[in-house]
């Protein structure tokens, strides 16, 4: 974690605490405000060393109730220097007004406490950026070498294709390359493991937790989103994953193509042998029937086996020629660089704003929770104050 982030977090906390000191009476602030602020800074430094962000949050959870409680006490004590705080409170909470004042005091205290806690925690939470890359993926086509006559590749529908793709992207076969390429073991070790490089399994687990895969409905588009507190890192990782997956698919595609060409070549060689044999057979038949010597009528039914054999040989030769053309075409295709079955539609860019925490939402939720809890606590307190007031009111009559 860089010194800049540490200073920013502590500075933010410090400024927030100094602003909250307004809760104390002016005289108290003038006498002790600076010392309190300095003490808070010292405590903040200790808290950071102890537990980083969580340490700061724990400090605030301790300091906020303290601030609210003591500021109320100081306010009461400064109301009238001639009367003690307890006298003043007693005068304030007169029996008939006690429930109302109690409700208001408890409501205000609880509401401010909850709201301030939510604001403080929200602003202390580490910011997270997201970067998204978009891919267009196609399933691997069925072998186009089923026969020379099939000029178009065959594509079959796979209902699990997208889910399979997601699993492959999260597989070590793709992520290991990303980890090595970006040296995530070393970088994350410095950041999260006190400088000691992480092992690949741990880095892989962390990377998966920061990875989100989604699909655009009714398309073959996949979105790969990576979350990180470093916006540049998020974009780098997302792009590296996309590239790694693409490389994997291209490699698969090339291997399949090579296997297909090999199969075609095998078939070509077998056909060549059988054609030679057929050619020899045809030559034998021609000699047998004296075809071409002028002694035999070529239209005679007796020489029909020759013509049948010749027709079949011609078909085989045509097939053989087509096969040779197909092999050459596939070899040429393999030499031309292509995107293969994966197309990178959009590269990931560093995010401009953090996606977490959602500050407005957190604060609104904090305010709503504050209202709910404050109302509940205020109502309970008011009820207690009412019961106590009633008892006090009845006690003199009973004794009198």
């Amino acid at each position, binding site marked *: 974690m860089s010194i800049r982030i540490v200073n920013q977090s502590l500075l933010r906390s410090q400024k927030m605490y100094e602003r909250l000191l307004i809760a*104390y009476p002016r005289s*108290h602030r003038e006498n002790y405000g600076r*010392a*309190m602020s300095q003490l808070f800074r010292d405590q903040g430094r200790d808290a950071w060393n102890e537990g980083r962000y969580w340490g700061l949050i724990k400090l605030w959870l301790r300091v906020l109730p*303290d601030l609210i*409680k*003591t500021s109320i006490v100081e306010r009461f004590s400064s109301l009238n220097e001639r009367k003690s705080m307890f006298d003043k409170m007693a005068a304030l909470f007169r029996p008939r007004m006690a429930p109302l004042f109690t409700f208001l005091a408890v409501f205000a205290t609880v509401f401010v406490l909850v709201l301030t806690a939510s604001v403080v925690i929200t602003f202390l939470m580490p910011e997270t950026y997201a970067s998204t890359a978009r891919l267009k993926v196609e399933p691997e086509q069925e072998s186009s070498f089923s026969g020379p006559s099939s000029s178009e590749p065959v594509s079959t529908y796979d209902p699990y294709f997208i889910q399979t793709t997601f699993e492959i992207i999260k597989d070590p076969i793709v992520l290991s390359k990303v980890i090595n390429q970006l040296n995530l073991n070393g970088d994350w070790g410095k950041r999260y493991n006190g400088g000691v490089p992480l092992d690949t399994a741990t880095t892989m687990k962390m990377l998966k937790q920061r990875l989100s895969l989604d699909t655009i409905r009714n398309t073959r588009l996949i979105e790969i989103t990576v979350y990180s507190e470093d916006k540049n890192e998020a974009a780098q990782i997302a792009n590296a994953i996309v590239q790694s997956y693409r490389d994997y698919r291209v490699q698969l595609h090339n291997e399949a193509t090579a296997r297909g060409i090999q199969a075609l070549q095998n078939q070509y060689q077998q056909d060549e042998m059988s054609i030679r044999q057929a050619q020899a057979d045809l030559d034998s038949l021609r000699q047998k029937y004296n075809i071409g010597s002028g002694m035999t009528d070529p239209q005679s039914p007796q020489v029909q086996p020759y013509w049948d054999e010749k027709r079949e040989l011609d078909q085989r030769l045509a097939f053989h020629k087509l096969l040779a053309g197909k092999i050459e075409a596939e070899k040429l295709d393999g030499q031309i660089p292509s995107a293969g079955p994966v197309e990178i539609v959009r590269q990931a860019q560093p995010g401009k704003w953090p996606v977490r925490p959602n500050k407005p939402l957190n604060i609104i939720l904090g305010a709503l929770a504050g209202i709910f809890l404050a109302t509940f606590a205020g109502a309970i307190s008011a009820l207690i104050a009412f019961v106590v007031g009633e008892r006090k009111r009845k006690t003199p009559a009973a004794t009198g």
Partner: protein
Amino acid sequence: MTTNQIDPEKLLPLTPAVFHVLLALAGGERHGYAIMQEVAESTEGRIKMGPGTLYGTIKRLLEARLIQESDERPDPGLDDERRRYYRLTGVGEQVVTAEARRYAGIVAMARGKRLLGGSLKAASAGN
């Protein structure tokens, strides 16, 4: 309120915050952060005073003349000169001593009733 008119016993019992602050200052003059650290260490981290509680307590102790702000600094070269140091007054020392004795008495009583470790003999020897 003058020092020679205060009966320390009348100020007892002290609140935990006041007692811990006075105890911390019994070891010598300290600034706020050092008091807070001393209290946290002596209570094994159970009591961590916030700035509001600490300086509210200091304010009341100053008003009661149990402590006073120190003009001298232990070692100005080693410390932030903006820090304010506090030390016990004579009355403050009497009060914290009286409170400590009161606690000791309570502890002895608890031992006598076998609520704590130690025998009756040890408890009476302690008295």
